[in-house]
């Protein structure tokens, strides 16, 4: 019997190594798997590269991971959220490296990784400093830059419902990066508010089929913190 549901945070985080590339779902604090980040801090992996849209808000979630000094590098599109205190402290102290890229390029690089596409050409960033040093090519008279797939060792994501095969649904805009990241990592761990029986999800409405998911932890925490 396939059963991807794990009982504890420790099981959910088992085997995550130092130096891993962690794909972390969420847009601001919405759709960010806070419980799994706490589990990662507890688990102890360090020298991590974290791929996330933002660089942490306040002192919880990714910011807490930064404060715990576990992150070597952040890859994100928007490091300036309303309250990026932990990131700015770590960055100014020279404790972390930052790579900024356009949000759509970041999303597409992970989609490519999950879809077996090693690189692709995109019109985004052509003629800007973010395209410097990148291979450029014209198609039908328009310029594009070459971007490579972005692979994760681990994806930590948040879902709304999950079954024991790892089929996932999401809630409103909390979907964001989560389904894309689920496809792009060797190990995908989801926290879900609701665990449902196999067959209970409408097969027409499954944004993340279970093949992309390795572990599911039930975390019924209720409503997200105020953004």
């Amino acid at each position, binding site marked *: 019997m396939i059963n991807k549901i794990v009982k504890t945070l420790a099981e959910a985080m088992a085997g995550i190594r130092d130096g891993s590339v962690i794909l972390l779902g969420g*847009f601001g604090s919405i759709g960010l798997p806070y419980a799994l980040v706490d589990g990662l801090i507890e688990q102890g992996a360090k020298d991590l590269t974290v791929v996330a849209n933002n660089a942490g808000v306040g002192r919880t979630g990714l910011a807490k991971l930064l404060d715990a000094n576990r992150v070597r590098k952040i890859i994100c*599109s928007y490091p300036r959220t309303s309250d990026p205190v932990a990131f700015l402290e770590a960055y100014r102290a020279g404790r972390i490296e930052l790579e900024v890229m356009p949000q759509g390029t970041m999303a*597409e690089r992970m989609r490519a990784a999950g879809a077996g596409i090693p690189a692709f050409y995109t019109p985004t960033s052509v003629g800007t400093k973010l395209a410097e040093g990148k291979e450029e090519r014209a198609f039908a008279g328009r310029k594009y830059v070459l971007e490579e797939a972005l692979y994760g060792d681990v994806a930590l994501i948040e879902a709304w419902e999950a079954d024991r095969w790892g089929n996932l649904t999401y809630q409103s805009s909390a979907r964001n990066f989560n389904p894309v990241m689920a496809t792009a990592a060797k190990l995908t761990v989801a926290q879900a508010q609701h665990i449902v029986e196999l067959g209970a999800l409408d097969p027409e409405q499954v944004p993340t089929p279970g093949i992309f998911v390795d572990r599911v932890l039930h975390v019924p925490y209720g409503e997200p913190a105020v*953004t």
Partner: protein
Amino acid sequence: MNVNVSTNVLAACKPWTRIEIAARAARDIPEGYYVNLGIGIPVLVADHIPADREVVIQSENGVLGMGPAPAPDRINPWLINAGKQYVTLVAGGSYMHHADSFALIRGGHLDLCVLGAFQVAENGDLANWATSAKDTTPAVGGAMDLAAGAKKIWVLMEHTTKSGESRLKRRCDYPLTAPGVVKRVYTNLAVLDISEEGFLVRELAPGLTLEALQEVTEAPLRMAN
């Protein structure tokens, strides 16, 4: 009202407020358009689209058919916009993941993107993500994808900086978001198109003359028609 223009020019006219800039742009958005609104003055556009006109608003974080802010007792805590404020979904709206949201943006499916900016040049160059090439933590977000992908780019911004420098430039000196993409600019002083010949003034704030506008504008201006 944010007053950024030199006093002699200002004395002769009544600049538009941020809300009036947004309302002025909203009047020009046709029925049936799919539109992304950037943070700043652009998000105010949503409140001023005429009630009898159906315009579908997209938010980069995977929302198509975004509605206004909810009443305090009707908040869906999972539903935010790109500025991370609570919003609603209109009937017919849908959610998608980030790669699809940006496929929609980059793939040329949006009729229009309305953005804020630091500077716009007479050749349509847009600078709206960093104020210095030396900025070590610049925040690009979705700006470059939107600028490269939407069919049309309009900019809504104050005409000058707080210290009175023109934001309408011959060439941008801030790092570019995308070259040659801006088609129209709405400021507190004027509505301008960008043509092969540079800025064409379509409309002036009440009481303002072209000469007075030119005084506070670095790029050369001409009246349309």
